């Protein structure tokens, strides 16, 4: 008879398949970049970046901004997740819904809006009469400023991962703690947070890695104050492309990979030696009554939301209504011309909407499947190979888009071996790059959900006769609907806005929304760019509203704002 597989193992094809896919999405492009770097090194010696103090300062800046930013994200994301899923505040759904939107405003715009909001020209501060005089140094041009904005930008990532984690906490565990005499705050500290730790850590680690690879915010807030981070450093290297640039790129990528691996190591440590598997059913979470604190908490949440969403978004809307920067918004200057132009004259916007919608959907769903398979594998197999896979998955997301794009061009510019045709210049290469880039984002919530699930639920399905695909679809996916929802929403939102990867990989006909917005802005049509951004946000809101209407037909808990 045939050799029998291990008890806790998956079908024999699973590991090789997942391994191969990860190799293809991550190791091969990264390896190609490393190869180009090594070749350049052999041609002209070790890359000088490695010996410049500036590089190490950028390394330190990257580390500090992303760590601080992560803390900001965690504070905001956790607060919102707890408030919307465990307390009796009103309009939770709206809060949750709105809290995801900051991710939809491109980082550059958020940064500019905050600069404007806190600078001398701030309409807000002017109205309040506390605008600083012309030329006052901008407080946001600092490590703290960068971290703050990174934190704000990435808070929804923590929010979503955390919510998925919270939804898996068994209700009776909280009740038992309360009956033991723990006041809500104690329950939070001793039971809720520890049990939601996988979700929390997943969120924190995506926020951290996002901060490592972010270019838009440090570019706008860091460069004026001479604060370079690794992504902005990479960019400045690329500006004067020379013989050593590939070596520089490879070296800087290596540094970012090191940060990532260190982050992952910390994450593994934090999670190790614990068991988060719930035993039995995890029902609906109970609700803590805030009592007299409800109104203040609500005010605080809405205020934060105003700062991180309404203000940048208002700035966006305002600049879409006036023809040029600095033109005051008043009855004479206001016009909807930009919207007319975008909607009815620019044919690219329609294509871009189509492309981005396709890419974001395909990436989100494709990665969902991939993430489930990978998470399943990672949880059932242990060992250094698995840790290595995790790092491989994470690096592409940590690299600035431009580096990843270069790696993919290196790999795909020439026709594919054997097959003879080239993917370069088609929409598929962008999709592959998206799969590579956002894998980490998609995997995190799913992996943490797997950590929390009662294994007996899968075992029962197996004994019923369900093979891997079947029990994934029928049992695991629906049970982990919150995590699956978070994963899809995260990837979709990020992909909708993605700029750099698609910018370098696109050609005529395949441009995406991010590229379209960037091009409009770059050619001085800030009004059109803003209008398009506003339309993108509107599209997302419309999409979410549509899902809200369809909620009845979707598995429970998939829609993050409905929990």
């Amino acid at each position, binding site marked *: 008879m045939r050799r029998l597989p291990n008890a806790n193992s998956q079908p024999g094809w699973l590991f090789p398949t997942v391994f191969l896919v990860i190799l293809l999405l991550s190791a091969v492009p990264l390896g190609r970049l490393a190869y180009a770097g090594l070749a350049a090194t052999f041609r002209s010696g070790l890359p000088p970046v490695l010996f410049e103090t500036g590089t190490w300062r950028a390394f330190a800046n990257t580390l500090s901004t992303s760590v601080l930013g992560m803390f900001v994200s965690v504070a905001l994301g956790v607060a919102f997740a707890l408030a919307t899923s465990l307390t009796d505040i009103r309009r939770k759904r709206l809060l949750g819904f709105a809290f995801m939107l900051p991710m939809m405003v491109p980082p550059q715009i958020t940064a500019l809006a905050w600069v404007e909001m806190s600078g001398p020209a701030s309409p807000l501060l002017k109205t309040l009469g506390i605008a600083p005089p012309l030329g006052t140094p901008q407080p946001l041009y600092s490590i703290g400023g960068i971290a703050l904005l990174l934190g704000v930008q990435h808070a929804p990532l923590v929010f979503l991962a955390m919510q998925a984690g919270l939804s898996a906490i*068994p209700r*009776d*565990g909280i*009740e*038992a*703690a*309360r*009956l*033991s*005499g*723990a*006041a*809500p705050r*104690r*329950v939070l500290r*001793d*039971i809720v947070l*520890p*049990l939601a*730790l996988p979700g929390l850590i997943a969120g924190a680690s995506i926020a951290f890695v996002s901060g490592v690879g972010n270019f838009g915010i440090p570019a706008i807030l860091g460069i004026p104050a001479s604060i370079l981070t690794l992504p902005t450093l990479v960019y400045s290297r690329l500006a004067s492309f020379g013989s050593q640039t590939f070596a520089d790129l490879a070296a800087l990528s290596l540094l970012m990979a090191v940060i990532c691996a260190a982050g992952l190591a910390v994450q593994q440590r934090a999670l190790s030696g*614990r*068991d*988060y*598997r*719930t*035993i*039995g*059913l995890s029902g609906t979470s*109970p609700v803590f*009554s805030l009592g007299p604190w409800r109104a203040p908490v609500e005010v605080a949440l809405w205020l934060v939301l105003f700062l991180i969403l309404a203000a940048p978004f208002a700035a966006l809307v305002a600049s879409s209504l006036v023809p040029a920067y600095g033109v005051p918004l008043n009855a004479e200057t206001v016009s909807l011309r930009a919207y007319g132009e975008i909607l009815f004259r620019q044919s690219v916007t329609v294509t871009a909407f189509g492309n981005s919608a396709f890419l974001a959907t395909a990436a989100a769903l494709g990665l969902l499947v991939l993430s489930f398979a990978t998470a399943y594998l990672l949880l059932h197999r242990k060992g250094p190979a698995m840790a290595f896979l995790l790092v491989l998955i994470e690096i592409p997301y940590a690299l600035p888009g431009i580096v990843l794009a270069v790696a993919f061009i290196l790999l795909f510019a020439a026709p594919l071996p054997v097959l003879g045709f080239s993917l370069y210049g088609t929409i598929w290469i962008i999709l592959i790059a998206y799969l590579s880039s956002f894998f980490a984002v998609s995997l995190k919530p799913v992996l943490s959900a797997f950590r929390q699930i009662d294994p007996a639920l899968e075992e029962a399905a197996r004994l019923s006769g369900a093979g891997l695909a079947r029990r994934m679809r029928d049992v695991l996916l629906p049970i982990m609907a919150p995590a699956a929802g978070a994963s899809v929403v995260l990837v979709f939102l990020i992909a909708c806005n993605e700029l750099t990867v698609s910018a370098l990989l696109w050609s005529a006909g395949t441009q995406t929304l991010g590229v379209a917005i960037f091009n409009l802005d770059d050619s001085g049509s800030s009004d059109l760019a803003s209008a398009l951004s506003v339309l993108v946000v509107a599209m997302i809101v419309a999409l979410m509203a549509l899902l809200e209407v369809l909620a009845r037909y979707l598995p429970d808990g998939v829609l993050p704002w409905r929990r």
Partner: protein
Amino acid sequence: MATLILNHLSKAYDGGRAAVNGVSLTVRDGGFLALLGPSGCGKTTLLRMIAGFEQPSDGSIVLGERVISTAEGVLPPERRNMAMVFQSYALWPHMTVAQNVGYPLKLRGVKGENLRRKTMEALDVVRLADLADRRPAALSGGQRQRVALARCLVTSPDVVLLDEPLANLDRHLRAAMEETFRDFHARSGATMIYVTHDQAEAMALATEIAVMSEGRFLQVAPPNEIYAHPEGRVVGGLIGQGTILSLPVGEGRERSLDRAACHALLLGEAGGSLCDVLIRPEHVRPAVDGIALQVRECVFTGERHALTLARADGSLLKAFSAERLAPGSMAVFSVERGWRL
């Protein structure tokens, strides 16, 4: 510690029938109430209301002088000083066994050596001291249940709520734990409410038994009283074993039937309207003279055989026998006692 009073307590889950329906009861300070009833009758729901997890749809709960639950609001569970063994155990998966058990102590400010000692004492009682550092996921079902038990009894709660706390334990452990409950009850004087499906357990432990069905209390009485004098078909069928026969019984007669009365009834010698009569197996004994019955079934239960006996009209009686009787054979039994429901 104080008297626990339930006033017309009701609870309906969203859009369903009432799970608990107008229940009233007084458990005196230090009482030990066993709650019996078929699966789904509302026992857990009642405990959850007492603990403060569910808000009553109607009625109120009073503990001592304080109203602790009404349809308008409830005193939060953490301020009730109660303890509970959950039907699902509700262990915290991220804590070790010792941490799980010690947590209520920690909340009460017990620290260091004292905490360790008390925790280990509680674990000793449930015989889990050597598993103190395990996580719940690495325990067997019965071990989990014992952790939940230890956690429940580690402090000095005013009210202890036990939701089938011994369901997953073997007989010996069960006996030992019963002993522990009795000790704990005697020592702490806490009011205990105990849900179980094991009547022997209930009888052995409780000062009072409440029989519940479909959200209502059918009878509340001390164990021997409820066993001897159940009220109505449901309680009669639920408490102890026995069969209920519809027999013609004349009006105005004693509810307690002696041997002669039973035989008269069973032989159809008495007239009158039909009435439900409960006959317990221990009162049906092999005898020299009495009623001839056919053995339908004879099931070995270890200590003895459980017999199912058929009367001439096909209605059934139950009895015990030390010896195996062949199914199908006829035998003579005397019926010592009966109870008119």
